[in-house]
């Protein structure tokens, strides 16, 4: 079975006056139809860059240096801008962007912004589009009577839900949710996540959820990818990830994350800071912070290997130190 979305060896750098920022380096993952994938990692680790690349929305100074993105057998990177715009963006892949609070244009009504998305991609009447918009809003729990409001008249949670409604407007196959709940308070966060989960299940959507917050990923996604400094360090099912993280970084990350259930233990934190991507460390990018680093780690980039069934990890040490598990 071929995946709906297949990312292979994606390498994208940002050109700056100081040199290239190696934001995405050899990233590979795939997404099955109906699957929900979480990408987690600290801020600045390249999560959002990957997400933007999927829609070719990378900033102007971005350079693709290799790899492919295949959507349903179609090479997205090879498509011209016009084709991407018409056929991929929002129609097949839509997104709930980071900081959705600011993603709604303040000078247009919420309704109009959703209608605009529909009219851009589908040849339907304005009336039809409006009808669909109201349905969508109802679906995400917004009273259709508020549809004509401006974004500033919405609360944070409502804006986020409206964004979700907008993301669903053209019945996309994939929805990328980039930190969908970051700025929300805990209760609203839970509500929004519930909406996302429900919709994903009901509509059979494929979803990529990006978050620095592991609990959000844990709650929502079937599969979890951990990124560190522009590379994927571990990729496995969410259950497996939380039970048996293999990469020292994942271990640290999950360890740093308090569990509401389960035994209490001391929070483990990772010392040091993520590297400067202008000049990342050679070999394994995590080695300067890794408690288990060896000489090899400083020289050779560890490949992402399926070391256990359905569990991929990029670490030289992973099999040599079973006690570490």
């Amino acid at each position, binding site marked *: 079975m071929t995946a709906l979305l297949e990312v292979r060896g994606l390498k994208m750098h940002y050109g700056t006056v100081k040199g290239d920022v190696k934001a995405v380096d050899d990233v590979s993952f795939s997404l099955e139809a109906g699957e929900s994938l979480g990408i987690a990692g600290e801020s600045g680790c390249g999560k959002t860059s990957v997400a933007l690349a999927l829609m070719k929305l990378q900033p102007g100074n971005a350079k693709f240096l290799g790899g492919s993105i295949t959507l349903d057998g179609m090479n997205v990177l090879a498509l011209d801008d016009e084709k991407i*715009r*018409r056929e991929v*963006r*929002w129609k097949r892949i839509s997104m709930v962007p980071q900081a959705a609070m600011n993603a*709604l*244009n303040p*000078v247009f009504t919420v309704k109009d912004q959703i209608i605009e*998305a529909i009219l851009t991609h589908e040849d339907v009447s304005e009336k039809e589009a409006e009808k669909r918009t109201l349905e969508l809003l109802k679906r995400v729990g917004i009273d259709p009577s508020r549809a004509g409001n401006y974004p500033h*008249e919405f609360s944070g949670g409502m804006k986020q839900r409206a964004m979700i409604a907008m993301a669903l407007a053209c019945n996309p196959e994939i929805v990328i949710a980039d930190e969908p709940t970051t700025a929300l308070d805990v209760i609203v966060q839970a509500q929004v996540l519930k909406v996302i989960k429900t919709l994903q299940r009901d509509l059979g959507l494929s979803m990529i959820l990006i978050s620095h917050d592991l609990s959000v990923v844990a709650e929502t996604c079937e599969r979890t990818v951990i990124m560190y400094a522009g590379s994927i360090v571990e990729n496995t099912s969410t259950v497996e990830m939380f039970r048996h993280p293999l990469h020292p970084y994942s271990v640290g990350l999950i360890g740093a994350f308090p569990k509401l259930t389960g035994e209490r233990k001391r929070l483990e934190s990772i010392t040091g800071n993520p590297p400067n991507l202008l000049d990342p460390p050679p070999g394994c990018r995590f080695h300067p912070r890794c408690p288990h680093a060896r000489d090899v780690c400083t020289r050779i980039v560890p490949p992402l290997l399926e070391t256990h069934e359905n569990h991929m990890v990029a670490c030289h040490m992973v099999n040599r130190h079973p006690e570490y598990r």
Partner: protein
Amino acid sequence: MGLLSYVAKRAAFAVVTILIIMTMNFVIFRMMPGNPVAMIADMVRLRPEQVARLYELFGLDKPLWDQYVQYMVQSLRGFYGYSYYSQRPIAEDIMVRLPNTLLLVGTATVLSIVIGMVIGILAAARRGSLVDVTAISFGFLGNSVPVFWLGLILLLVFGVDLKWFPIRGTTSVPAPTDPLALVLDIMWHMTLPTFALVIILFGGYALIMRAAMIDVLTEDYIQLARAKGLDERTVLYKHALRNAMLPMVTVIALAFGFLLSGALLTETVFSWYGLGRYIWDAILKQDYPALQGIFFIISVMVVAANLIADLVYGFLDPRIRQE
């Protein structure tokens, strides 16, 4: 409700501003040195009784307070007194010149705003590119060229040497009688002054537009608009422009507010029969009532333009409407 009280508050503020301006207008002209009667006396060597008559005629023989009251009452009634020089009612003098100024400065303002905005948007969209650098340099250059000098250069090149455009005036001498020919004649005459004004003005609008656009283009909703698959034109002109227009609205409104002051020097270089030239002449001749009248009208226009800007702001930006 909210909108209504917003408008009312702004309007009341505008009225108070106008009253203060009127008073200042009066005070400034009384404080200026010089004496219009003496200027006339100098020309024809009047006898004392004739001098007295002139004082009486211009109301300068009354106490200052009476002059002030009379000035306020008359101004509010739309009567600004008689010009010391033409001896015609100032409102009449202004009305004769108004259409010419509106035509020239209006056209030039609209053109330079449109050109400035388009250049500003393009420059912002291609920030750092050759287009950006060229456009902005030319904008700066045009903005800093003295208009009188520019006008004279244009006159000498296109009027004297090439003889493509006329050297003076609003119409030919004599003006054509056929209406269509007259329209073409006026357009021919306004080409050079309009061109000079646009060169001077567009840069400012371009720079402001560019800055506003660059600000807006980094906003999240612009990325979202792109993600939505909107084409670049819609992103720029619908999503970004509408937001970037907010700072532009004030600038544009003020430009229209100062429309009546005409283009003092441009109108003078090109002998355009407008209000700018009227102000220039009135300054040279110390024609206080004329200056008072026109300054009053300009003040009202500027205050009104500000009011309109506030209202348009409310229309463009729903957040303000709410407050």
